[in-house]
């Protein structure tokens, strides 16, 4: 039950949102009928057509072009297992072509869970009395950051509920606090944000505290489902407001934005096309596509029946397909696979889905990192997570498979943002930075945080392998990285290209 103050805050904000929607300068880019028609029309794809799309996707990896809606509908309807193997191989090939064989690591940090919305699928919905919500104090936030930096984390996605306690001012204050904390050699160098849509002036305030990426997930692009999931009198009930959340962020000058869908609310094929139309709209209006795409799958949440009985729950097999299609569809984008998924599936998807960013050692209860020693805390979580490996265990598994674990945060601190970042990703040259910075940040991890077995494999296999790659491909950068590695060994930190 919302308090009077919360109700008033919501009412006033809702009025402002509705006013904005009345004067929205952009046209709704989701035509439900058109998407459904497209999916129907491509129901039985021709093998040659699928192979041609796969070839086109490979070519697009060097040009930054995206697949067309027709192409994506065709891939989504493909059933031939042989063709699927070709799609999976291509997803991996594209990811390596653009980003190299590194996996960027991050942690989500839930800062506040009280929320004035009442979304049918969310454990934090205001009517769910079975979940205890909480907003971190600055002292508690500092404790969380200490635990995260002690693990070796350098980059976060901070998560806030939509609530007066966690408004734009609070978000700025908490992000500034995070950046200010030094913990020995540890620090957080990049804070990405996952929060509610804001007004342009609010985004400007958030931009000024130096965030990385601003994420807003549409959850579902399908209008009737959106309406069903998000009650009309709530802030999240306003489809258009959310649909153009990132257009407003770009208008405010935040030029790294991220999109996503909560898979399981509606047909995954439809949602893939929704993501594509969203990316195309951002490109059309601002010339900058999504920095990352996320594809969380509906997971069980306390006292939230929809999370287990939705008719659109996505099977593991379909999940693999949709992750791979995202990579083919939008080759330049970062692809985020979270610890919601089980370890074996995550490991498989690095190869089959072209995933580029992952979290590890994750806790999703507010204050959960300081309670690390305890088990997961279902009555304080938005949903359940399945991959409970520690960061070090996860890194070891990556190393065993030959990947380069990376804590890189260099691009946004070296001015490679927005228009300066996109050409690197679109022309598949960003890996030339990714590998060098991956080596340097992994070395820091090995020096300061790694277990003996990770140190062993990291120093003897992973770093030499990737230095060799750099020497072969960018000798000038390899020379610089070797010098910077020596400086790290002498105690210097935060060395990057």
């Amino acid at each position, binding site marked *: 039950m919302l308090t009077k103050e919360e109700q008033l805050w919501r009412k006033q904000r809702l009025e402002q949102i509705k006013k904005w929607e009345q004067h929205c300068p952009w046209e709704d880019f989701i035509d439900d009928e058109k998407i459904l028609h497209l999916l129907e029309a491509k129901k039985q794809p021709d093998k040659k057509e699928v192979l041609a799309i796969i070839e086109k996707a490979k070519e697009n990896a060097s040009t930054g072009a995206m697949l067309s809606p027709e192409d994506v509908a065709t891939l989504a309807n493909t059933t031939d297992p042989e063709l699927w193997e070709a799609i999976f191989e291509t997803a991996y090939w594209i990811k390596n072509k653009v980003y190299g064989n590194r996996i960027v690591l991050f942690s989500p940090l839930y800062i506040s869970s009280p929320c004035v919305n009442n979304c049918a699928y969310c454990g934090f919905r205001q009517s769910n009395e079975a979940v205890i919500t909480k907003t971190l104090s600055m002292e508690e936030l500092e404790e969380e950051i200490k635990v995260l930096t002690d693990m070796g984390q350098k980059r976060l996605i901070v998560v806030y509920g939509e609530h007066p306690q966690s408004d734009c001012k609070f978000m700025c204050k908490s992000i500034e606090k995070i950046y200010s904390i030094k913990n020995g050699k540890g620090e957080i160098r990049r804070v990405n944000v996952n929060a509610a849509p804001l007004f342009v002036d609010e985004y400007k305030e958030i931009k000024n505290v130096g965030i990385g990426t601003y994420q807003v997930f549409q959850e579902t692009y399908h209008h009737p489902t959106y309406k069903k999931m998000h009650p009309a009198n709530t802030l999240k009930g306003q489809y258009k407001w959310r649909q153009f959340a990132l257009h407003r962020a770009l208008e405010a000058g935040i*030029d790294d934005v991220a999109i996503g869908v909560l898979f399981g609310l509606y047909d995954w094929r439809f949602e893939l096309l929704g993501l594509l139309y969203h990316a195309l709209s951002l490109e059309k209006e601002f010339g900058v596509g999504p920095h990352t795409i996320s594809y969380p799958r509906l997971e069980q949440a306390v006292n939230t029946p929809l999370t287990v009985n939705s008719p659109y729950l996505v099977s593991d097999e379909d999940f693999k397909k949709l992750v791979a299609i995202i990579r083919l569809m939008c080759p330049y984008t970062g692809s985020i696979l979270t610890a919601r998924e089980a370890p074996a599936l995550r490991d498989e998807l690095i190869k089959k889905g072209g995933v580029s960013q992952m979290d590890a050692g994750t806790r999703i209860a507010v204050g959960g990192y300081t309670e690390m020693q305890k088990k997961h805390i279902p009555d304080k979580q938005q949903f359940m997570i399945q991959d409970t490996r520690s960061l070090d265990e996860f890194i070891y598994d990556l190393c065993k498979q030959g990947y380069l674990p990376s804590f890189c945060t260099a691009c946004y601190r070296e001015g490679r943002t927005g228009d300066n970042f996109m050409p690197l990703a679109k022309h598949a040259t960003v890996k*030339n930075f990714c590998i060098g910075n991956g080596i340097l940040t992994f070395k820091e991890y090995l020096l300061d945080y790694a277990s003996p077995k990770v140190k062993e494999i990291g120093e003897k296999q992973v770093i030499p392998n990737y230095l060799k790659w750099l020497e072969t491909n960018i000798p000038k950068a390899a020379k610089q990285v070797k010098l910077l590695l020596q400086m790290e060994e002498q105690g210097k930190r935060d060395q990057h290209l």
Partner: protein
Amino acid sequence: MQKLKQILAQKAKELCLKYKLEKVYFTQILGKRSHFLAGYGQESFVRPKKITLSDQLAVFIEGELTPAQNTSLKQELIPFAQKIKEGLL
């Protein structure tokens, strides 16, 4: 903002050609973030040299500079950044 970006892009081009640099770009300083504004040149995939011009503006340079060129470039850029700050350009 658009006009400022045009001025910065022009300046970046001038510097690139004058000092035979591979790439020059200007950024807005926002805490840890260096927010790209405008630039010119080809990426060389090495660590760029950062010169902080004011509390809000920095320039990143890729390419070799002699010490004399370095001094000359700074002498050229500091008044330029001051004018930007004062909104004179």
